């Protein structure tokens, strides 16, 4: 599958990693790509580690297995580093994005010798600042779009606004906060 971008998400049940993967599939679909967004569940409960995946391609996607050699990894919950081998199979010319207040240099020693690019983002802080609660998935979604270049910022924001109006039709008061979270995350994700 030449040209397919593969992304793996690590989160905990209830944090929205699966939703973020589905939103990323949505965004990529809008750019005319073939997409896959799917979760891998272990035990069904809040707080259990979950993995979600994306494939994005210019050609129809037929493979229905999990992703073992991703180009990008997104870690929505920092506490998974260690218990989960988050860089397993991650391509050296790819990147990992971690939700943490720490810098990439501080995170690198925890990543089993991974030598590729590391980005960090304090998604919890951004989420609390813009939404008043810890929903790290929106900022992490903006971060993976910024880092991977799947879509340029302006078009992404426009798509997300439409998508949030649909998703939060019954609670429009959270739309502005989510949009602000995306904007901040786009700016603040650091190498």
């Amino acid at each position: 599958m030449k040209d397919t971008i593969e992304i793996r998400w690590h989160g905990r049940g209830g944090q929205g990693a699966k939703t973020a993967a589905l939103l990323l599939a949505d965004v990529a679909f809008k750019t005319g790509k073939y997409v896959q967004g799917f979760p891998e569940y272990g035990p069904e409960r809040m707080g259990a580690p979950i993995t979600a995946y994306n494939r994005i391609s210019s050609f129809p996607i037929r493979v229905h297995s999990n992703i073992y050699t991703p180009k990008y990894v997104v870690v929505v919950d920092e506490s998974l580093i260690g218990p989960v081998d988050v860089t397993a199979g991650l391509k050296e010319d790819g990147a990992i994005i971690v939700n943490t207040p720490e810098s990439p240099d501080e995170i690198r020693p925890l990543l089993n010798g991974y030598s590729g690019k590391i980005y960090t983002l304090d998604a919890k802080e951004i989420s609390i600042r813009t939404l008043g609660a810890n929903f790290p998935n929106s900022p992490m979604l903006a971060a993976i779009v910024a880092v991977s270049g799947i879509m340029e910022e302006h078009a992404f924001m426009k798509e997300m606004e439409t998508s949030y109006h649909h998703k939060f039709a019954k609670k429009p008061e959270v739309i502005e906060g989510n949009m602000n979270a995306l904007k901040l995350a786009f700016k603040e994700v650091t190498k």
Partner: protein
Amino acid sequence: MAIRERLSGNEAVAYAIRQINPDVMPAFPITPSTEIPQYVSTFIANGEIDTEFIPVESEHSAMSAAIGASAAGCRVLTATSSCGMALMWEELYVAASNRLPLALALVNRALSGPININCDHSDSMGARDTGWIQIYAENNQEAYDNFVQAYRISEHKDVRLPIMICQDGFITSHAVENIELIEDEKVKAFVGEYEPEQYLLNPQMPMAVGPYATSPFYMETKMLQNEAMIHARKVILDVAADFKEMTGRSYGFFESYRLEDADYAIVMIGSAAGTTKEAIDELREAGKKVGLLKIRVFRPFPGEEIANALKHTKAVAILDRSEGFRAGGGPLSAEVKEHLYDIHASTRAVSYIYGLGGRDYTTVEAKEVYRQLEDMIENGTNIPQYQYIGLRK
């Protein structure tokens, strides 16, 4: 103009249900099929369809209510998975033997135990002898297309059998992928209105449903049920031909992928077929003559057609996503081998078990299967004739 969208497999089936607007849906939730009744009840709450939704207290009741509604003359469906279907067991036979058209959106999931929510085919394979038609999908597109075709097959006067439209739990049910949808009015015109010839609520023609059959009569009903299954073969192909005319998308009993000149083939069902196609393309680039036969229709079983499509190969691997516990392979392997024997094929056939309880199957595993087949034929190596793929070391 087709509608380009991206939907999960569950969303896709729910979308087809909305377009068809069946009369009655009794349902009880179970992962990973829960979203289907959820979406349908939302459509009802929004006034998009006027299906009568019956929330029941168990799957036993869901299928019982579906049987009652179908006998009364309604177009009916329900959805379930795994243990939910196991609780319908008695009623699956009742629906089929009473010749009641009925659609079941089955999202395949492993049966307990150990308890597991992920995909395998043990639920529907266990029900293979209940008298239901079974059609399987590789992806969300096929799940949608199969559901659009379901009632035309099930309600056909020469068939009148319940139909199971199966897709792989989580792997396709919860995966968002691109899909081409058909416009509402085209789907409605294609499916048409249901006009049963005989039904319980028709005072002009009183009838009994589900009476006792003594030994002098019971066997004939079974023979007639099987005759309906034989008729289903033609109806399935006729409906597929009409569907192709509408959409351009072609369906048959099975799909052959690079099989015509293949020396080695895999036979399998469901989402893993896509992964195998990817492996085939990679192996073909390396000069290996490999192919795939992906089963779409498992009941009625197109055994003769399958055997004829495979007979030119040197060896086939039959991959079952459920264990048959006959201490010798799964159900698909048994049936394919039977028909290869019937036509005196010289093709060697090896049985494999894969993907139980959601165990992943990748292009690496597919390539290893082809390597083993080639090794067996070219080098005369003895390989186990019945083995598990991807076990923990």
